């Protein structure tokens, strides 16, 4: 995907926060960078992989990516690792020991918090990891700061031999703004020097490192007090002063240009003296933070009189129109005028699976099989929970479909006695965290049918490569995992492993129906590429012959976005039952000819599209 290119020359560039960090990582002379893709962090590594002179990889999960970065840092080289907020839950096992060993070469861990939940299963505040792991946290407020702070984080990391957390949020990761960039400065790695007392964390060694960690805490706090990353802007309106970090600072400045503000760029450990200094300037202090009331709680414990989530929302993104009314209320001022227009009511437009997505057939089939409890996972196929399939009953965290399915099987109640348990997981997700769950399921004799949807990509984040598709981060050839052999090695019986083409609905239906009846672990592997990656090849498109369409609507249940209803009607059956009819057309210009919708169409009204004249292509549709 990402061929290595010469980096653009230093200049003023319009960069997203992710691109700015990537650029700074390269400029800092980093040698090794690793990540597992996850919104909103993905682009950091994607961009890094295009730069020369460093090693970049997609790891199978965040813990492994951190371990790779740790190894490089132990060897004295600068290294980098990034992840989305939930990724740190996975990586935290390594993090909590890393904080004791520290590093030799600089190590920066960028964590992207999906504040406002654009595509995550929860909202969490990664600043806690700074407290939990006793690590310094930097919080940029825009792309320029993201760039500068990344460079400074490497300096701090090497000065204190401590990894530094760069906490970002969606509004930093994905906002583009101007950045003045520089050039790469090479850093020669010193090579690994054996120091077992420090790098072998057996209890005897670890207990000697813990006091050093606390000593480091104190030194870092002293540094935060004087760091230019934490500064007070005095302002003229002294009624309310603000303490803010990250994008919250921008919203404060926008909303209250004349108010005193303490901006925390180096926000952990909290510089208490600086906070007292601000408090002395103003009548009241409001701490503005996304997401959790974290700093405010620490300040209260210090005896400072400060406000936070008492007046600000506990969830979601902050913005001027959240801050202004809250402060107006605090000051007893009239609320700002309501918005000019009340939103007009329009239907919801939830995300859908792509035209011809190989998962469509799987969910269509699952929606046709009765008596299933379906345990789902993270990825595009989570969309199977939506219309028209409604074929997903749980989704917890990456890889959890396996364990949850086993639990649903073992813990079944009277009501579920005759239900079959199905687990659905994608290829990358399976490699990330699913393998262990499947092993557990086999070992403990579960009765679960696993659908392993191999679409040869991390689909949801944009089709990144993984060990399942035989390409590395640069799109170069790499060893490709054989899923049938892999699940067999985990103990699934040969006769319970099936490879099925997800576009062949009758075979898929038959295989699922048969396997759910067998009271042991089965794995059904579907193997067709995601439509967004280069392995996917379009076929001849289809169209609907108007006068053959009976309006049964079966094809709509497949859920392909290329199928549209032209008109609706009603029909009274011989039995006297009234049924709804929906007549359809196919947007042939986007149909890829996958053939899915053709199969449930009894009157054979869907046929290959025969262009008559270019005019026929004209239809209201994609705006490109």
């Amino acid at each position, binding site marked *: 995907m990402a061929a290595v290119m010469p980096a653009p020359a230093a200049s*003023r560039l*319009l960069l997203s926060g992710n691109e700015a960090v990537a650029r700074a990582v390269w400029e800092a002379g980093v040698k090794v960078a690793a990540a597992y893709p996850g*919104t909103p962090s993905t682009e950091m590594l994607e961009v890094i992989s295009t730069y020369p002179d460093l090693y970049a990889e997609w790891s199978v999960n965040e813990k492994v990516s951190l371990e790779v970065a740790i190894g490089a840092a132990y060897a004295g080289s600068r290294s980098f690792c990034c992840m989305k907020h939930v990724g740190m839950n996975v990586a935290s096992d390594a993090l909590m020991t890393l904080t004791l060993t520290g590093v030799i070469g600089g190590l920066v861990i960028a964590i992207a918090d999906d504040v406002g*939940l*654009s*595509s995550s299963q929860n909202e969490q505040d990664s600043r806690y990891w700074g407290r939990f792991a006793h690590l310094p946290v930097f919080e940029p407020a*825009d792309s320029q700061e993201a760039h500068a702070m990344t460079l400074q984080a490497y300096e701090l990391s090497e000065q204190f031999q401590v990894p530094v957390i760069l906490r970002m949020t969606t*509004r930093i990761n*994905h*906002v*583009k*703004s*101007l950045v003045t960039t520089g050039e790469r400065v090479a850093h020669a790695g010193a090579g690994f020097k054996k120091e077992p007392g420090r790098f072998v964390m057996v209890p005897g060694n670890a207990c000697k490192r813990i006091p050093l960690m606390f000593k480091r805490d104190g030194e870092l706090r002293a540094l935060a007090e004087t760091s230019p990353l934490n500064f007070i802007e005095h302002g003229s309106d002294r009624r309310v002063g603000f303490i803010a970090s990250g*994008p919250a600072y*921008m*919203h404060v*400045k*926008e909303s209250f*240009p004349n108010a005193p503000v303490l901006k925390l760029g180096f926000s952990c450990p909290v510089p208490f003296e600086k906070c007292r200094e601000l408090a002395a300037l103003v009548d009241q202090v409001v701490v503005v933070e996304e997401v959790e009331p974290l700093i405010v709680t620490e300040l209260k414990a210090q005896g400072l009189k400060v406000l936070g989530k008492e007046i600000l929302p506990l969830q979601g993104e902050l*913005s*001027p*129109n959240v801050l202004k009314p809250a402060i107006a209320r605090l000051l007893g001022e009239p609320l700002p005028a309501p*918005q*000019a*227009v*009340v*939103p*007009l009511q*329009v*239907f*919801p*437009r*939830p*995300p*859908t*699976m*792509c035209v011809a997505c190989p998962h469509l057939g799987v969910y269509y089939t699952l929606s046709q099989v009765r008596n299933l409890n379906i345990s789902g996972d993270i990825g*595009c196929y989570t*969309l199977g929970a939506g*219309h*028209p399939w409604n074929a997903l009953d749980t989704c917890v965290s990456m890889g959890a479909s396996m364990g949850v399915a086993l639990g649903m099987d073992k813990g079944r109640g009277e009501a579920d006695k005759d239900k079959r348990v199905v687990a659905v997981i994608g290829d990358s997700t399976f490699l990330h965290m699913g393998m262990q769950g499947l092993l557990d399921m086999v070992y403990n004799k579960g009765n679960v049918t696993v659908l392993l949807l191999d679409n040869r990509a991390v689909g949801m984040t*944009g089709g990144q490569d993984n060990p399942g598709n035989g390409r590395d981060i640069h799109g170069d050839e790499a060893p490709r995992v054989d899923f049938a052999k892999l699940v067999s090695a985990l103990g699934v019986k040969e006769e319970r492993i099936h490879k099925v083409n997800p576009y062949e609905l009758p075979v898929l239906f038959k295989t699922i129906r048969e396997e759910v009846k067998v009271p042991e672990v089965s794995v059904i592997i579907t193997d067709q590429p995601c439509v*967004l990656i280069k392995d996917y090849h379009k076929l001849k498109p289809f169209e609907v012959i108007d006068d053959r369409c009976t309006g049964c609507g079966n094809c*709509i249940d497949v*859920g392909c*976005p290329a*199928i*549209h*209803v032209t008109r*609706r009607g009603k029909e009274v059956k011989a039995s006297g039952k009234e049924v*709804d009819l*929906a007549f359809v057309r196919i947007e042939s*210009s986007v149909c890829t000819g996958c053939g899915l919708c053709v199969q449930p169409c009894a009157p054979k009204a869907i046929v290959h599209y025969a262009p008559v004249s270019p005019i026929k*292509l*004209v239809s*209201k*549709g*994609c*705006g*490109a």
Partner: protein
Amino acid sequence: MSENTNILVVGIGGQGVMTATEILAEAAIAMGHDAKKTEVAGMAQRGGVVSSHLRFGQRVLSPQITPGTADVLLGFESAEAMRWQHMLRPGGITLMNTARLVPPVVELGLFDYPDDPLGEIRKSGNKVVAFDATSIAQQLGDIRLGNTVMLGAIADHLPFPAETLLDCVLKRFQRKGEKLVELNRQAFAAGRAAVGTAEAVAA
């Protein structure tokens, strides 16, 4: 501090909303402005709602446009243009493509697509200019030119010359050959003209 220009570009995933906004941002930067661009797009690639914010001026702080403060709303799709009306400031203007992209939830009969989004916007009292950017692009031979048609449409509603924006559009296609550059030049001009005539008719 609100001398910033706020432009909201809306549509659905896959229409090129983010690219269009980025080109607008490049044009603003070329004029010496500070600029910030952001999206509100959950899983945008999958046909969901996309709204892309552009703010530019001497110094931009918050990247998001506060509801009720957008100067121009560039709508790539009818219902989406309607959905975001509350973002406009009084006197702000909507430039909208009349194309209707009907989502699966409507096909399934769970919700209705508004019969007359343009009429609804007019009823709300906001200024709006509507034109069929999709047809214009198709007539030029490629539906993907719709993006450039939309940029042509906004070109005369910016606080800088249309030519600066055109330059930024064409720069994107320079490596892909003279033919594409020419097609995009035509698409841009067609978008500009379409808004001109639509406005003349409306007046």
